[in-house]
């Protein structure tokens, strides 16, 4: 499968479009519903973090790629995760969003404002 991607302007209203994109890609590639839910949550958290850290005007890109029997999702930029969402200061030691992502995906890679997560797939 070719790489699929969506680029959204850095506004809160567009994050729902990312969830729709990630959900469609996940289901069409054979991810479990639980994996799809987790991917949608991770993509939302990363986009929200980038928006709260003043994402660039060119927006945020979410890319999906099939690789070695896995669906790989990349979000760029994903922010630095050095700021808690409003109301959650002090809930966790570091970033609540990052803790949430790492709770769902212990192997999540945070690399120079690119977040990478992967889930196993059952090819259709």
């Amino acid at each position: 499968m070719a790489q699929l991607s969506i680029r959204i302007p850095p506004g809160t209203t567009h994050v729902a479009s990312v969830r729709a994109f990630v959900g469609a890609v996940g289901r069409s590639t054979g991810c479990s519903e639980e994996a799809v839910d987790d991917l949608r949550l991770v993509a939302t958290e990363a986009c929200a973090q980038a928006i709260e850290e003043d994402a660039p005007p060119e927006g945020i890109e979410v890319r999906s790629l099939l690789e070695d029997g896995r669906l790989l999702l990349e979000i760029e930029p994903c922010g630095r995760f050095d700021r808690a969402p409003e109301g959650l200061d002090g809930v966790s030691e570091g970033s609540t969003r990052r803790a949430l992502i790492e709770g769902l995906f212990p192997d999540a890679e945070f690399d120079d404002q690119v977040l990478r997560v992967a889930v196993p797939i059952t090819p259709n």
Partner: protein
Amino acid sequence: MDVIVGTRTEGPWTLVEVAGELDLHTSPPLRDHLLELIQGGVDHLALDLTKVDFMDSSSLGSLVTCLKRVRERDGKLVLVGVGGTPMKVLTLTGLDRVFDIVGSTSELPPG
């Protein structure tokens, strides 16, 4: 998109019914509605999340803000019917131990 379906009174509780997806775009209007209720004197607030199928940490922040505000007034905020992704988010952040959570409106305490 407005996620607030309705607000009604059940005994001592003011019940706010919510539906759809809660994120950093949709949760601020909900937070403002809840804070208005609290500011207006509501001290037993129940949030029915039965029809909420998605919730992120921005939404949790909004709910925590409301919880703090209602507790400052010796009031209560109870979450009703939490499941799926919203429950997973609450559990992973440990906030399931902070909020009072019941399965349905019939399980709301008498007051």
